[in-house]
């Protein structure tokens, strides 16, 4: 039976179910097929911190949103066109985000009185008319799956567990996704469990066939591939891109990478990933705590490795003293902070941009640290290389501020040519660098490079350069302990001057019409939503400019000049105005701060409204 095929330009699907329903896996698979099909895409996994909250409850709902299109897109989308709700909790938790007319696919088997009561539905919303403004597809996913697997060797429980594959099969048919990749994936995942493998494939195929035959879906949709820059692509998440960026940077810096880390959400995946790559000379160490993780990394840097530590906000708090030590020692170190909602434990699995000021100021004394923030999942790769470049060239700890949205979100990524990666290698000190009045020579650990102000990186094992360094103030040049007032003033200014003088790229402004009076300024993961909002605004004929910081310390040299060009500057942030505080303080610009801390990225629509409001008042 062939059905009518309707062309769509873009679609936003949200898969939602219980934590144990396999929604993340389902979403991942749909994403991989969509990526391979050639659509542009952006994803937003949204799951609770608990591994398995009680079944069928609102806290246990796990969701995965995917936005895919035949053109380039910047966000995972504001409102889903399609919600797949595997139980009443998933429906209740997500219904408020759906626009009228959206398709809702529900598993009617799960809409039992008990499950409805669990989430506070007095009546079944599928029957009481409350969903009349939506296109409801009532499908007994569980029983259809069990029925399809009747002949299979698996238990009824295992058959029920395959319902996510039935749903994936149905959605794959609905949007004409290729199927081979999913079959290959299942073959790999369940290679050692042939019964489970057979059941999952059968469920997937049954879902596809159901779509073809059911009268519930009268049309099949097609979203054509998006035009993209020529090259080889893959789908890429932020944490993976960041891990690969570190591996590539170590190769480009010609240094063995050493990661000292302690597990913490949402950064642990970087530890997991790097642990797999010993073949690249990547050494990983799961320490006893956050402090030991960074301590070991700093010890490794002292020994001539590329020391890296990965964590999230609460871990940064614990590492602060060691970061200060790295500032004093003037040794390379990369601190990756995958930000999450705070304060304290906060929202471990939700995103936020609220560690900027912690990265900037969260240490005792004057202890400047460069800060770099990636803007998209794929950009985590380049940002990691930039962090390593600065750390090694300037012998300084560097903050790399990712966040939960970038970490777990994904997008198509153009695979870079390894040969085009920059050479960021630096030389270790090998000889004396100071001549005394009597002509004798010696090694001065704080004799600085006149251009970068960096001190020599002299690693143990180098004969003739034996020296002692430490957190206690040192005399510039000799490196001897010094409590001298003038020296401390000098060293404080030198450490600051070194960071202020880092070579960072200019701030670029996107202003297609060239006559914008309002600039939207952002940093980090808000790039996508701000960019999408700016497009919406411009589509209405309203000019607006966008600029986005990659370097937050130091700011690009042209920042003041850029800010002066505009009548108004809007700074949207997923915090209460941290970049705005820095920009106002540094540039005396009366920036308009727009803030949300909802654990989720901004919606382009909302931001567009904010921008229009400001433009209207100029």
């Amino acid at each position: 039976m062939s059905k009518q095929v309707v062309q769509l330009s873009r679609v936003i699907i949200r898969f939602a179910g219980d934590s144990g329903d396999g929604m993340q896996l389902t979403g991942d698979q749909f994403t991989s097929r969509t990526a391979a099909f050639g659509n542009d895409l952006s994803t937003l996994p949204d799951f609770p911190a608990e591994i398995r909250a009680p079944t069928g409850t609102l806290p246990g709902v796990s969701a995965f949103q995917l936005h895919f299109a035949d053109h380039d897109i910047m966000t995972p989308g504001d409102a889903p066109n399609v919600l797949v709700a595997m139980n009443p909790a998933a429906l209740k938790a997500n219904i408020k985000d759906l626009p009228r007319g959206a398709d809702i696919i529900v598993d009617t088997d799960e809409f039992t009185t008990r499950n409805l009561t669990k989430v506070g539905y007095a009546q079944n919303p599928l029957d009481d008319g409350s969903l009349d403004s939506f296109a409801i597809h009532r499908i007994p996913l569980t029983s259809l799956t069990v029925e399809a697997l009747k002949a299979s060797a698996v238990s009824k429980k295992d058959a029920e567990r395959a319902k996510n594959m039935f749903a994936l099969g149905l959605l794959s048919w609905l949007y004409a996704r290729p199927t081979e990749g999913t079959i290959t994936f299942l073959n790999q995942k369940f290679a050692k469990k042939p019964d489970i493998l057979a059941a999952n494939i059968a469920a997937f195929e049954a879902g596809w066939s159901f779509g073809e035959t059911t009268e519930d879906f009268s049309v099949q949709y097609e979203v054509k591939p998006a035009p993209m820059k020529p090259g080889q692509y893959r789908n890429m998440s932020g944490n993976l891109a960041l891990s690969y960026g570190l591996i590539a940077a170590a190769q480009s810096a010609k240094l063995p990478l050493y990661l000292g880390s302690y597990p913490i959400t949402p950064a642990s995946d970087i530890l997991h990933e790097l642990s797999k790559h010993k073949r690249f000379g990547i050494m990983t160490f799961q320490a006893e705590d956050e402090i030991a993780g960074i301590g070991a990394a700093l010890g490794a840097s002292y020994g001539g490795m590329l020391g890296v530590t990965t964590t999230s906000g609460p871990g940064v708090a614990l590492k602060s003293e060691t970061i200060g030590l790295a500032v004093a020692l003037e040794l390379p170190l990369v601190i990756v902070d995958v930000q999450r909602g705070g304060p304290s434990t906060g929202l471990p699995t939700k995103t936020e941009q609220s560690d900027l000021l912690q990265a900037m100021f969260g240490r005792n004394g004057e202890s400047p640290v460069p800060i770099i923030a990636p803007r998209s999942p794929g950009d985590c790769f380049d940002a990691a290389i930039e962090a390593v470049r600065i750390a090694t060239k300037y012998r300084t700890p560097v903050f790399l501020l990712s966040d939960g949205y970038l970490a777990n979100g994904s997008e198509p990524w153009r695979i870079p040519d390894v040969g085009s990666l920059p050479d960021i290698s630096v030389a270790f000190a090998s000889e004396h660098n100071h001549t005394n009045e009597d002509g004798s020579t010696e090694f001065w650990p704080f004799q600085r490079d006149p251009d970068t102000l960096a001190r020599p990186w002299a690693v143990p094992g180098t004969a003739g350069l034996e020296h002692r360094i430490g957190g206690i103030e040192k005399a510039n040049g000799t490196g001897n302990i010094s409590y001298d007032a003038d020296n401390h003033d000098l060293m404080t200014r030198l450490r600051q001057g070194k960071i202020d003088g880092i070579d960072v790229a200019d701030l670029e402004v996107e202003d297609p019409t060239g006559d914008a009076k309002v600039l939207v300024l952002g940093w980090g993961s808000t790039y996508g939503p701000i960019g999408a909002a700016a497009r919406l605004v411009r589509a209405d004929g309203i000019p607006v400019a966008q600029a986005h910081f990659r370097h937050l310390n130091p700011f690009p040299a042209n920042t003041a000049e850029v800010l002066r060009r505009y009548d108004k500057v809007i700074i949207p942030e997923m915090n209460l105005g941290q970049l705005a505080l820095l920009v106002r303080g540094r540039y005396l610009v009366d920036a308009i701060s727009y803030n949300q801390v909802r654990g989720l990225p901004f919606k382009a629509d909302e931001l567009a409204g904010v921008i229009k409001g400001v433009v209207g008042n100029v």
Partner: protein
Amino acid sequence: MSETVDLGFPSLRLVPKATEKQSAKDFKTDQEVRWCPGCGDYAILAAVQSFMPELGLARENVVWVSGIGCSSRFPYYMNTYGLHSIHGRAPAIASGLAMTRPDLSVWVVTGDGDALSIGGNHLIHALRRNVNLKILLFNNRIYGLTKGQYSPTSEVGKVTKSTPMGSLDHPFNPVSLALGAEASFVARTIDSDRKHLTETLRQAALHEGTALVEIYQNCNIFNDGAWDPLKDSDHRDNLTFRLQHGEPITLVDGTRGVIRTADGSLEVADVATVGLDAILLHDAHNQDPSVAFALSRISDPMTLANTPIGVFRDVKRPSYDSTFQAQMALAQEGGRGDLASLLAGNDTWTIS
């Protein structure tokens, strides 16, 4: 994963040797030593500087790492590489250095506050991992650099600036703690006994893995005489067991010795009464740490009676760094990874 891999025992032999004969002078720096006159640290520094030439290691391959406290100034006075870090963290920092650089001989200097209070976590984890570090713990039972508060080894009831009515905390016994963490080498010595100190350092240096050496050290400003009973020539032989592997554990004067009681615990008995044959022979190489632990509990923290000094435990266990490096080597047996194929992965598409 039940398979095991024989990972071998690399050790100091990976550290390059000095090409010329060294003397204590070679290990002295031009820095002015800033400990209080009369501090026990001077004696330890002199003993270490005299002992280092015996190891014959290239000076540039020796690193001293410390935390914060009086003892932690030690690296500034050793003409090797040195890193004076932050309070309590030296074992963590040294671990990262030691596991990535098997060609270095890494020494940690710490004190009772640095190692057992703020840095307790790092100490026990370094010990359980058996990282190739030599940790010298200067124990003076007081906080010196912060001017005289009680420490985690102070005796109960210690009157200090922060405990005017006497401290309430039960003290740590550093040797018991280290044995509880299953350290592979645990010893105790005394700052003023140059010969014993040097011999203990020698054994620690040769040990593969973490060696913890507790050094009873006198703070003549804030806790003067804390170890005097063990130094006083009239009493020390009657208070001290000098542990020697394979020898009966008796006080230096031979009057009393350690016996095993019917319930398996250890007890001090008159040698004349029980006979020398009944005295336990010291077995430093016993894989089971429980006898060494019992031995560490036999002294009285208040009077210092029955204090064992010497090597409590010295057993073979693969060092963390050797197994860490072996895994790296194993992973790279088939050659280095190829970055281009890593970045591409196995699920790509091409846009032309």
